[in-house]
């Protein structure tokens, strides 16, 4: 009867014992966790899937109810509710206004399953324009600021100008449609279509022709399975991740493979397939759902785990094989060497990337690896492999805190330097996590400001 009382915040479901040994947990004492205040924001009636930052203190949320809501990130106040889509929203992106333009209106583009794309003004809440001539649902949007055009990717790829005129479009690419789209140099874009990466080149109108055109330049067929994530790392390279856990780093200029990691998150597939199948019963346990990067590393969310891939060393330098109870959906790197991940298990975890120098020197008890998630190997096969793994990871991801608030999968989060963290979830809620001490100080400041305004504060002459 008291089990739930004594137990921590763990979920007592499914492979409880397995997880207990593998999943790192942190107690209730989290001294380094700064988020000691939360504010629940309620406006959506369905899963909230997207969060997009508008400026320093505003963000927009969008979800399956077709609603876009603009919030104040400081106070949690609901600023605007944008009604226009009849079905769930599939993509949202901010549309930066032109530098030359006088009025600095904050615009956003939203695409929905109702096969429309709407351009909103986030200051007035008005619908600026609506396009509804799509043959298929637009699944991704990207803005090429340099050319002042935006692209929509569904079953085909369309190029639009600021006034929402269709400039050109490709032929029908596939029924699954474009799952991801990024811009690379030389007026090119990379689109992930199923297992393929297709590179298109945009031809802007020049002297001769007045027409825009988009040309398929190359198809890259190196992935074995559907490409789930696609990201620009820097000017020189971009990275893709697939359903079966292939991570490929590509050169942006000549579109060649710079590096490739297969199976690195699963170092022992050959050892005992029976065992592996039992442990990682779901294929999406190794799918790469999200990628993020900084100057040195690419951070990869692989299934339930987190991996840090060093670009220079071209290998994984730290990993957390079971970072969450369930799929990791979104990760982000904070400036202070911290990594935040959110997952289908409804939790958000904060990690810190630390050097592991002293660990290599001493003999490490096996219990340690058990704790960190490496203890899943069979007894007889474990010793040599463990050594190898130990050498491979020179850093470690340490759990410094977790945020528990949502009762369902946390779809995405947004980090504000000044205001904290915003998370959105399938439980229809958005939670604003704040640093309690800082908020308390801010409130004091405001209090004395108000006192001064009211004339209740007497300042020294």
């Amino acid at each position, binding site marked *: 009867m*008291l089990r739930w009382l004594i137990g921590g915040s763990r979920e007592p479901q499914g492979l409880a014992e397995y997880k207990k040994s593998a999943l790192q947990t942190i107690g*209730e004492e989290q001294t380094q966790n700064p988020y000691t205040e939360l504010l629940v924001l309620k406006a959506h009636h369905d899963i909230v899937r997207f969060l997009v930052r508008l400026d320093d203190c505003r963000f927009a949320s969008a979800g399956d109810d077709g609603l876009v809501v603009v919030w104040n990130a400081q106070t949690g106040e609901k600023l605007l509710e944008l009604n226009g889509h009849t079905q769930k929203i599939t993509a949202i992106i901010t549309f930066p206004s032109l530098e030359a333009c006088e009025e600095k209106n904050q615009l956003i583009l939203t695409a929905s399953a109702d096969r429309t794309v709407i351009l909103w003004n986030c200051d007035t809440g008005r619908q600026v324009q609506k396009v509804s001539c799509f043959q298929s649902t637009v699944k991704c949007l990207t803005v090429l600021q340099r050319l002042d055009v935006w692209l929509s990717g569904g079953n085909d790829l369309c190029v639009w100008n600021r006034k929402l005129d269709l400039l050109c479009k490709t032929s029908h690419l596939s029924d699954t449609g474009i799952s991801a789209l990024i811009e690379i140099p030389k007026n090119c874009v990379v689109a992930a279509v199923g297992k393929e990466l297709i590179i298109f080149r945009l031809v802007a109108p020049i002297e001769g022709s007045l027409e825009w055109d988009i040309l398929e330049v190359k198809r890259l067929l190196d992935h074995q399975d559907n490409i789930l994530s696609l990201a620009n790392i820097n000017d020189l390279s971009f990275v893709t991740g697939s359903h079966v856990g292939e991570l490929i780093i590509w050169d942006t200029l000549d579109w060649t493979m710079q590096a490739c990691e297969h199976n690195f998150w699963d170092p022992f597939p050959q050892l005992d397939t029976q065992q592996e199948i039992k442990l990682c019963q779901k294929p999406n346990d190794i799918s790469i759902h999200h990628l993020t990067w900084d100057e040195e590393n690419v951070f990869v969310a692989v299934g339930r785990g987190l991996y840090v891939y060093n670009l220079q060393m071209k290998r994984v330098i730290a990993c957390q094989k079971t970072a969450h109870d369930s799929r990791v959906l979104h990760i982000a790197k904070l400036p202070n060497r911290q990594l935040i991940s959110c997952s289908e298990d409804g939790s958000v975890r904060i990690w810190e990337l630390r050097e592991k120098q002293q660990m290599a020197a001493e003999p490490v008890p096996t219990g340690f690896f058990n704790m960190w998630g490496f203890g899943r190997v069979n007894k007889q096969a474990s010793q040599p492999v463990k050594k190898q793994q130990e050498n491979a990871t020179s850093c470690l991801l340490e759990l410094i805190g977790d945020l528990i608030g949502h009762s369902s999968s946390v779809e995405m989060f947004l980090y504000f330097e000044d205001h904290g963290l915003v998370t959105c979830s399938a439980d229809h809620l958005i939670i604003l996590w704040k640093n309690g001490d800082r908020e308390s100080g801010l409130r004091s400041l*405001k209090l004395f400001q108000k006192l001064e305004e009211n004339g209740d504060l007497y300042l020294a002459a």
Partner: protein
Amino acid sequence: MISAPDVVAFTKEDEYEEEPYNEPALPEEYSVPLFPFTSQGANPWSKLSGAKFSRDFILISEFSEQVGPQPLLTIPNDTKVFGTFDLNYFSLRIMSVDYQASFVGHPPGSAYPKLNFVEDSKVVLGDSKEGAFAYVHHLTLYDLEARGFVRPFCMAYISADQHKIMQQFQELSAEFSKASEYLKTGNRKAFAVELEKKLKDLDYTRTVLHTETEIQKKANDKGFYSSQAIEKANELASVEKSIIEHQDLLKQIRSYPHRKLKGSDLCSGEMEHAQDQPDQAPTTSNPDECADTDLYTCRPAYTPKLIKAKSAKCFDKKLKTLEELCDTEYFTKTLAQLSHIEHMFRGDLCYLLTSQIDRALLKQQHITNFLFEDFADDDRMVEKQESIPSKPSQDRPPSRSLEECPIPQVLISVGSYKSSVESVLIKMEQEFGGEDCKEVEVAEMSSFDLHGNLDYLDMDMKGSVSSGESIEVLGTEKPTSALSKSDSQASLVVPLSPQVIRSKAVSHRTISEDSIEVLSTCPSEALIPDDFKASYPSAINEEESYADDNEGAIHFQASISLSKLGEPEEGSLENTLSQADSCCIGKESDSLLVPLTTPIHTLSDEDGVVSIPPQHYRQKDQGFCVDFAVENANPSSRDNSSEGFPAYELDPGQLLASRDISKISLDNYSDTTSYVSSVASTSLDRTPSSAHPTGPSFERHKKRAGQNALKFIRQYPFAHPAIYSLLSGRTLVVLGEDEAIVRKLVTALSIFVPNYSCYAKPVKHWVSSPLHITDFQKWKLIGLQRVASPASASTLHVLSRYSRYTSILDLDNKTLRCPLYRGTLVPRLADHRTQIKRGSTYYLHVQSMLTQLCSKAFLYTFCHHLHLPAHNKEIEELVASRQASFLKLNLGLVNEDVKVVQYLAELLKLHYMQESPGTSQPMLRFDYVPSFLYKI
């Protein structure tokens, strides 16, 4: 919340001290002079001498033109209440007091009868034979059939306690005026209706007469009129005259001065009538038309009757009842108002006074009082908040604040005067320029409640001493002048300079003396019982010293603040306030301290000037120490701590506990249900609730909650961490199968839950669905159903998932899962070995402890230097360490107590900054601290 009425009532009689331990002698300042009537060993709560009724009641009497003065009804309408008291005799007494009623008649210069809209008169009157004292409110109602169209009535509040009537005069007057206004409004309406009917009758009669005359004229063409014809003609003429007169009356009643309606909170319908009337007045000369248009009248068509020339004899007709006179709707309202009055003034005078003081003090704590006050105070808080905005602008002039609150003076008063009495007196001199003017000013400043108490007391002596007769009219006052004066004072006193106040006070006193007259005396001196004669002067003496003795007053203040602040085991706490002060001083040397100290001084200063009736004044000082806690409290708290009273003596619970025993004996002693005695111990079901408009149910709620909280504390050894959870804003989930038990405990524990705003407590008594994160943001105390079904799995799962936000009290298994608590605050708040036995006493104990806590939170929140960096380069850590040391050293908080004050401070900040209170929910604050499982 602030004051425990029971402490006031404690007397020094030895027979009550039956406690086994050797209690130290009660300090002089705690004792109330023995009750004058109790020389035969009676207790102060027994029936007052001579009174033949068991409790106060309201009597409505009429001076009937047929049978003379007669009682009409009493409230409560229960013969037990007035017992053997002779209502007829008393009606005669109160109605025989002449008043300024002017009757309708033909004034010299006017052809028609003229209605006078007479002001009500208010008289205080004593009948020593009956042992009854009454506030008598005379009013006149109009009745077409009555002599001179008027029927004199009076409403009397009859009490055995003369001082109660005297001291509550303003309140009584205000409340009775409302009732009277209902009666008169209804009466005007009914009178107008009656007039209209009469006009129709007259009109009809005229027509009939006219036809008859014509017929006679025709029948009789002899050129001379028969006597019959002449008679008819005369009759017709008198009917014509009567019509004109009645029309004029109707016009008069409709043109009732509208200004009198303004400000009286009558139903808006009446206001509309009033506004419409100027237009209607001219048209009323035509009765037919007015029947359609008049808003007063919406009744079925009236069939006119023929009016006989000679009316029936005066004594044959049946006079209208009060209800008929006043229109049923208004009559019901009046009765409701009167029973409200009866509720409001139930109980002992000291109870009324303390609760008034309590309310007055609460009004001053407008920044913190939302935290733990009950919603019963909501309406008051609302009015209070309306008045706030005007305050700063009025007394803002910085020059004045600098002048009146020089910092060096504070230092002197803190440092060099040992005695609280001394230092306070000196303070008075500094502020007002002289001791002698203080009293005057005090009297003057009674702008809201006991306006002009001293005057009445003076008068009281005059009346009784000089006449010594069985009926004394002790004081009268014109209602309008009194009310307008108090209004203007409320707004004016604040900005006035001391000189102005003083002169105004003097003039006020003369006015009130003029208005008091001994109006009538009764030659039956022989009727006064000897014992009354003997004891009466002593009562006067008591009052005299009560009102005039400043020392006593200040002692009283000191003792209260001590009981709230000083308990020996607190150690550093005793000096909290003085240290708080010294911290400010210390800061001063840092050179930017002025901004900190000055505002506090001005605040306290301004509060000192606002609205202080005499008895309230000393409480006012206490208000300083609760709310602002810097200067005024210093002398007293320091003084008291140096005297070192043991804690027991100061524990109100202790006082009550000993009183409880005495109470039992009281109950046995008094054969009838002694209302007064029940009043004394604030714990019977019939406990008076004058302070709370919501009435006895609210008192009962408090009592029950206190009782159950006490039970919880005694039953569960882990009550402290649970209460700490509530105080620090961590949601406490009470889990159990039995709804009744869970609800009971939740209600009990809700007294510890700080509010977000003044609207509702964040308490959810019973939930059976799984909780959400939003519930923890919204509720701070939740009663949760444990279901013995698969559904409970998800409920429990949610609880364990959100365990970091909650403390879980499992009633079925008697376990508590929550963070560790090692502070000293809660043990004092909830001591399982407490001697407090009664729920309501414990409730008061909790409230006073929480008030103290609020004052700490207030100090912490509004100390400027604690939250803002002293200069730009100061790092946050420095500010944080300053806060920590303030909380620890100045406020005397240890370990987890700090978090309680920090949480309250956050609530204060949010509440202060909220534009429209109650609109937004505060954020959920939490800590990452480990929880522990407590078992019995």
